[in-house]
């Protein structure tokens, strides 16, 4: 009954971790996953969120076993 949380790039450096696990509970949103995964750090304005490798909004509800990722604007290419 856990959610895997991943942080990339600048957010990995700011949170000081690449990955965390938090307990699953009912009606958990991506924004709440951020709060629990970061001990209530403020989420930077331009943060992008993905659940199971698909982009979602921060009010998206997670399910048990989901992988939730947070990262800054992408800069590839």
């Amino acid at each position, binding site marked *: 009954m856990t959610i895997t949380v991943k942080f990339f790039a600048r957010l990995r450096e700011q949170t000081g971790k690449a990955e965390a696990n938090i307990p699953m509970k009912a009606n958990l949103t991506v924004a709440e996953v951020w709060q629990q995964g970061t001990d209530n750090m403020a989420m930077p304005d*331009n943060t992008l969120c*993905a659940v199971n*490798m698909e982009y979602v909004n921060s009010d998206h509800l997670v399910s048990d076993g989901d992988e939730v*990722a947070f990262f800054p604007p*992408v*800069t*590839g*290419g």
Partner: protein
Amino acid sequence: MACDIRTASFDPWQEIQHYQDEHLAKGKFGATASFVGSMRDFNEGDDVQAMTLEHYPGMTESYLNKICDEAKSRWDIIDCLIVHRVGEIKPNDPIVLTVVWSAHRAAAFDACRYLMEELKSRAPFWKKESLNQGERWVEKNTSG
């Protein structure tokens, strides 16, 4: 159709030739549009010594494939290829290659540009530049 993430330097022109020899039927395509993005030694007013490219293994490949599928459904193209570098990169190194093969040129031009624009705005890669003064994350991609 192929989307590759590379951890070592690649030669974009050899990539195109090899992919074409293996996957494209001779005489069936009339247009090949390609784009190579390579590392400049100067950005936003500063000399850049090197760059580190980070990605999200799994999601990156998934989005590159998604973008190729979208191009194939929107234009009448025969095949497409994306190669993208990750890890430590030096000036002049190729970073990205997008290629589209089609019967006629408009579809190849349009789809090749689409691949690049979508990759730049949606594929999870992040660049960190090494400057004389230290390191800095590239803030965001400009629209093309």
